[in-house]
C-alpha cells in the first residue's frame, strides 16, 4: 500500500505529515509506504497510491492535479494530531 503526503513546496509540512502518518499507521498496526511530495509532482508521485494526505487548503488543488487517478484524498486539519490522522486513515483504509 502506498500513501503520499502532499504540500505546496514538498518540504517541511509534507515531511511532518509523512512522519505522523507513519506513526498513525504503527498505532493501527498497518504497513504502508509513506512518501512526501509537492503539488507539482503529485500526479506522478501518487500514480500508484491508495491515499493522498493533504491539508484542507490544498485538497482542491490536489484533486485537480491528479485528474483521473483514483487515490482517495484524505484531508488533515492538525498535522501534529496523530489521533486525527489515525482515525481518518482507519476510515479510509478499513
Amino acid at each position, binding site marked *: 500500500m502506498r500513501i503520499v503526503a502532499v*504540500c*505546496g*513546496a*514538498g*518540504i*517541511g*509540512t509534507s*515531511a*511532518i*505529515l*509523512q*512522519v*505522523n502518518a507513519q*506513526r498513525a499507521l504503527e498505532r493501527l498496526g498497518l504497513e504502508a509506504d509513506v512518501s*512526501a511530495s509537492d*503539488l507539482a509532482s503529485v500526479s506522478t508521485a501518487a500514480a500508484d497510491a491508495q491515499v493522498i494526505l*493533504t*491539508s*484542507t*487548503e*490544498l485538497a482542491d*488543488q490536489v484533486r485537480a492535479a491528479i485528474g483521473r487517478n483514483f487515490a482517495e484524498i484524505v484531508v488533515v*486539519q*492538525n*498535522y*501534529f*494530531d*496523530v489521533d486525527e490522522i489515525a482515525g481518518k486513515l482507519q476510515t479510509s483504509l478499513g
Partner: protein
Amino acid sequence: MPLPPLATPAIALQADAADWREAVRAAGNALTVSGATKPEYSERMIGVIEEFGAYVVIAPGLALAHARPGPDVLAEGLSVVTLANPVPFGHPHNDPVSVVLGLAVTSAEEHVASVAELANVFNDEAIIGRIAEAQTPAAVRALLGYEADA
C-alpha cells in the same frame, strides 16, 4: 537525529505584525539575523502562501513558514516568532496564528529526519500555547527540547 538548528538570535518574542505577511517576514528576518538565509528568503516564503494558500498553518495557532531550497538559503535553520497579537492567515480551521516557525533547508531530501524531531515536540498539543507565552528565548529553546546554549 538532531532538531534543525535554532540560534538564539532566530527567536523573536511578542513581535508586532499587522497581518500574515508581516508575521512571515518576521520569521524570515529572524532566519536572516541568525545567518541561515539572505533577506530575499522572506519574500519566497510569502510567495509559497500566495501561490498555494494558508496550508502552512498546520495546527491551531501555528504556522510553519518555508520555501524550497535556493541560493538565498545559506544554511539549514529554524526561527521562532511569537506574536503580540495573533493574526489570521486565512486558514479554515487553524486561525489565528500566534506562533510562526520559519524553516530553511538546503536540500529537499535531507531535512526529513530533523523535521521528524520537530514533529515529536509538537505532538504534545499544549506546546504551542506554552511557546506563545514564553518570556525568554531560553524558555523557547527549552520547550522545543534544545540544549541551553546556541
